[in-house]
């Protein structure tokens, strides 16, 4: 595990969050959400700070982080692309859209492009089935995406 150094200001911010939840280990998931918000992802060092603050074993924290698909230990791309793989979207061809993204960015699902700009991941149902197939880039939601549209979606963020 390459040792990385954490920015002190961010660590301080994280400690504030733990304080807000008065160091209750039952709030581990809320703290991890906040931590991922602050650092963008959850490297081992961040998990160790959380474990220390909430007085929980680091193995337990890692067990929780690796259980939930929302937490990630590798930084997401600047523009995280998620393709909804819910049934409605699958039935309307989401798989072909996902393959197109993988082909154009030459990454596998869950990976980030070498330049760190894009990461492609499949997402659990976002609940906008009326717009199936749905693709989200960061907060922005794209509806009724066809494989042909993938090029111009990416173009928006070039």
């Amino acid at each position, binding site marked *: 595990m390459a040792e990385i150094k954490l920015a002190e200001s961010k660590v301080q911010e994280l400690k504030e969050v733990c304080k807000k939840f008065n160091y209750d280990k039952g709030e581990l998931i809320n703290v991890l959400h906040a931590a991922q918000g602050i650092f963008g992802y959850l490297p081992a060092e961040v998990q160790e700070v959380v474990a220390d603050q909430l007085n929980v074993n680091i193995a337990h924290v890692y067990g929780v982080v690796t259980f939930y698909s929302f937490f990630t230990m590798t930084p997401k791309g600047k523009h995280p692309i998620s393709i909804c793989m819910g049934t409605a979207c699958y039935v309307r061809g989401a798989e072909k859209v996902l393959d197109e993204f993988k082909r154009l960015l030459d990454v596998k699902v869950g990976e980030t492009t070498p330049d760190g700009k894009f990461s492609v991941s499949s997402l659990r149902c*976002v*609940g*906008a*089935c*009326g*717009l199936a197939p*749905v693709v989200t880039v960061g907060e922005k*939601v*794209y*509806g009724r995406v066809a494989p042909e549209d993938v090029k111009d979606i990416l173009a928006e963020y070039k």
Partner: protein
Amino acid sequence: MTKVKTLDDLKKMRNELQSKLTLREKSDHPEKMVQIKVSMATCGIASGAKETMNYLIEELDNRAVDAVVTQTGCMGYCHSEPTIEVHVPGTEPVVYGHVDTKKAEEIITKHIIGGELVDGVIPVSYTTPNEDENEK
């Protein structure tokens, strides 16, 4: 917002609010008080409901039409998002689908000001207990 201390406070508040709302509906200058509800659920916003709503507010202001544009939840017509409900007093509320800024402009000119309907009306296919009541 004053605290609601007792149940009667709540009832008093409800009646007040209800009359204010119906006032809005049955006010004496019908062509003025128009009520527009924009469906701002996730898919509505994703299909551009925010732009539509801002456009409506701005455009109705420019044309000095006394209207109230509020946001609301999902009306269920996912196939035609963004959807808005236009309620010109004295007429039945009408739901429109695929309302982008261009369509919104057409609705303002023809429906709100002109009083005629515009293509793309979505027939309401459900009733709610409240309606059953005031219909009985």
